[in-house]
């Protein structure tokens, strides 16, 4: 059987998980600015996302969906495609955090982090691929992972394991979907907003000082990289692009 060797087309309709706030919302806005339609779901719909959907009813489809509810995710994809047309790109962004030593993290919390950050994203990829293979045949996937998958940071054992798991799955998918889908990860460092909510000013300034660029990451730093992976003909495939101001080098 002959294999296609032409470039994977730019995304025309992007599914973003966890697009109601923070990085997810920035990625939704950026994909719209790049000319794509966007379907996004989150557990809770924020007023910002509601406004986007109201302002651009033909381009945005939103839903209140828990990513661990596989059936609800599949229904959302079907409804979004009926509204916007075939979905040909996925940004797997939804995740929950951790800030506790492994020995003091309950088995229930560990299971919840794995369910939300690893099992559910794998099932979203599966649901997306089943849709996209049938409808458009080709497309792009971006996993939002973390620098924690590459370097050790205290208090993030399970979180890091899930992000490392997604990076591994990403590489295998890039092989498995040969010529059909570009699959990559972006791995942000620590966001200034997240860090400032749990660390004191002194700790924050120490981390910032140790970052070669002298500043922590903002969602605005991640969006252009995701945009390129979704819309440009870069031929980047199976890679983790780390965006952390050089903090992990």
């Amino acid at each position: 059987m002959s294999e296609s060797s032409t470039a994977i087309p730019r995304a025309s309709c992007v599914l973003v998980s966890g697009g109601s706030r923070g990085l997810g919302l920035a990625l939704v806005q950026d994909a719209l600015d790049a000319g794509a339609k966007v379907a996004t779901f989150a557990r809770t719909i924020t007023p910002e996302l509601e406004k986007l959907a109201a302002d651009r009813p033909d381009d945005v489809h939103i839903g209140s969906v828990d990513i661990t509810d596989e059936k609800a995710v599949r229904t959302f994809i079907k409804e979004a495609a009926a509204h916007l047309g075939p979905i040909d790109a996925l940004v797997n962004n939804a995740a929950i955090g951790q800030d506790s030593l492994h020995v003091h993290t309950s088995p229930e919390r560990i299971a919840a982090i794995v369910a939300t950050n690893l099992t559910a994203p794998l099932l979203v990829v599966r649901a997306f691929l089943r849709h996209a293979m049938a409808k458009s045949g080709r497309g792009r996937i971006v996993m939002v992972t973390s620098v924690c998958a590459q370097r050790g940071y205290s208090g993030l054992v399970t979180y890091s394991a899930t992000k490392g798991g997604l990076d591994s799955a990403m590489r295998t998918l890039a092989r498995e979907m040969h010529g059909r889908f570009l699959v990559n990860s972006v791995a942000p460092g620590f966001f200034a907003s997240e860090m400032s909510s749990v660390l004191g000013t002194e700790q924050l300034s120490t981390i910032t000082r140790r970052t070669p660029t002298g500043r922590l990451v903002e969602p605005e730093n991640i969006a252009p990289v995701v945009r390129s992976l979704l819309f440009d003909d870069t031929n980047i495939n199976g890679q983790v692009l780390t965006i952390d101001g050089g903090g992990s080098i």
Partner: protein
Amino acid sequence: MADGCLDYIAMTTLPRDQVRSMMGEVLAAQGKELPAEDAALLETIGFRSLDFSELALRVEDELDEELNFDAPGLRSIETVGDVLTFIDQLQQA
């Protein structure tokens, strides 16, 4: 549910003095001493976050119950008294 049943399922808690002596044991194992004053600073006596973790696990062993907690709560702990109060609060939670 009868009061007796409630008493039965309620978690046992360790008194502050007992937790204090366990904290002393954690420090003694490293050749350090626990000052008598609750106001003593952890930084001064060299009681670090993993020492707190060890103390919490010793308390768990004693209670046969897990006392799981997130890290942000720990970051405001500065004195011996803060440690004892935090452990106390964990047991009450």
